[in-house]
């Protein structure tokens, strides 16, 4: 989870390093710790450190971590020469290392040699069959080849072994969503909410999926999870507030044929009006020229 303080710190460091001030090494460490994908910047500043022999020796043993980070960033930016150099340097320093073996297979992936990469991963798996990263890379290969069904199969097998891997559950949810298998995606989000109940973004995604599936019960549950998101974010999440307004109008439409008591039980007029008022207040604060649009949209939703 990237918090606001970390994000501001990251942006400040980025601006500072881009404009020629120092602090490239702190920036690279921060990117590595927060696991953010800023490959161009990492490549530019990392290779500037590695090109300068004085700065390189000043790093000491961290030089090899930097080599790995720059290698992966270079593969992401398709600068395969840089990546090859970094991997060669690491091979010379750590011959026969599994981590370097993984990097080599990653380089094969980046070059587009999917067959060789798959073989390299299988041979690495023979030596240590419980290596999480290698299983995940095999899933990534299937994803890159455009075969999401095979990726889903592999990922399901991986999750039977390693059920606590949040990133894998997230990836599985996104794969299901890309194939429009909403019920399975909802299951994945449920697992995520169970393991990390304080992250509001999972509640929001689950509510979105439930609203997409449709049907009165699902939309009522979606409203519950939008409300949970609002609770966790202190009312600042505009998307959740709008979600509640949409759920309100969807419930009103879907329960037109039902009798009076059912309708009264599911309606929550105070919640809807409060959410609409909160949305208008936010727009007044942050985007006052669009206030007209949102007010008319909310009014049309009430019908």
């Amino acid at each position, binding site marked *: *989870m*990237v*918090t*606001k*303080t*970390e*994000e501001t710190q990251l942006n400040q460091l980025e601006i500072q390093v881009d404009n020629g001030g120092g602090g490239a090494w702190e920036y690279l460490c921060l990117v590595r710790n*927060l*696991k*953010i*994908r800023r490959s*161009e910047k990492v*490549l*530019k500043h990392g*290779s500037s450190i*590695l*090109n300068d022999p004085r700065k*390189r020796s000043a790093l000491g043993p961290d030089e090899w971590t930097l080599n790995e980070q720059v290698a*992966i960033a*270079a*593969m*992401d*930016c*398709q*600068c395969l*020469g*840089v990546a090859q*150099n970094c991997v060669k*340097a690491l091979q010379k320093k750590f011959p026969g290392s599994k981590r370097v073996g993984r990097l080599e297979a990653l380089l094969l*992936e*980046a070059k*587009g040699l999917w067959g060789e990469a798959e073989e390299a991963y299988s041979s690495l798996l023979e030596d240590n069959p419980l290596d999480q*990263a290698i299983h*995940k*890379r095999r*899933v*990534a290969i299937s*994803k*890159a080849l455009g075969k999401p069904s095979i990726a889903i199969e592999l990922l399901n097998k991986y999750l039977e072994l390693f059920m606590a891997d949040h*990133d*894998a559950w*997230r*990836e599985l949810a996104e794969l299901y969503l890309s194939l429009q298998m909403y019920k399975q995606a909802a299951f994945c989000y449920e697992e995520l909410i169970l393991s990390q109940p*304080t*992250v*509001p*973004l999972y509640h929001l995604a689950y509510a979105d999926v439930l609203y997409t599936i449709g049907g009165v019960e699902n939309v009522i549950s979606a409203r519950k999870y939008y409300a949970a998101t609002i609770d*966790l*974010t*202190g009312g*600042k999440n505009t998307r959740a507030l709008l979600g509640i307004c949409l759920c309100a109008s969807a419930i009103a439409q879907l329960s037109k044929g039902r009798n009076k008591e059912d309708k009264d039980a599911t309606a929550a007029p105070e919640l809807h009006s409060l959410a609409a008022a909160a949305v208008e207040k936010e727009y007044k604060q942050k985007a006052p020229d669009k206030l007209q649009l949102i007010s008319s949209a909310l009014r049309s939703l009430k019908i």
Partner: protein
Amino acid sequence: MNLGFVVGVFGVLILSHAAYSTIQYRGLLKIMEEEFSRPPINVILELIIGLALCMWAALTFPGKFLSIHPDSDENRTVSLPDNSDFMIFNHRGRLFPPEIDMKF
């Protein structure tokens, strides 16, 4: 920082002086064979002053307090980390490699 530290040391000294006076008062009462119900008024006053100074120092010496609300402006989740374990390299950006010259 310095003022808070000095005030804190002062407060601790006052408290220890109050403790010492109370022990002496108890010894005196034992000699006079009377009951020890509570320390004298000046010791109680000293205790209150020492309490106030120590509390003030404890609140100002450590510096800025961090927020604990999960939805406060510093602590709120801005984004989830990009799933770099499942990163794929054949995206559209691969057609625009940046110009990097390497000498190593």
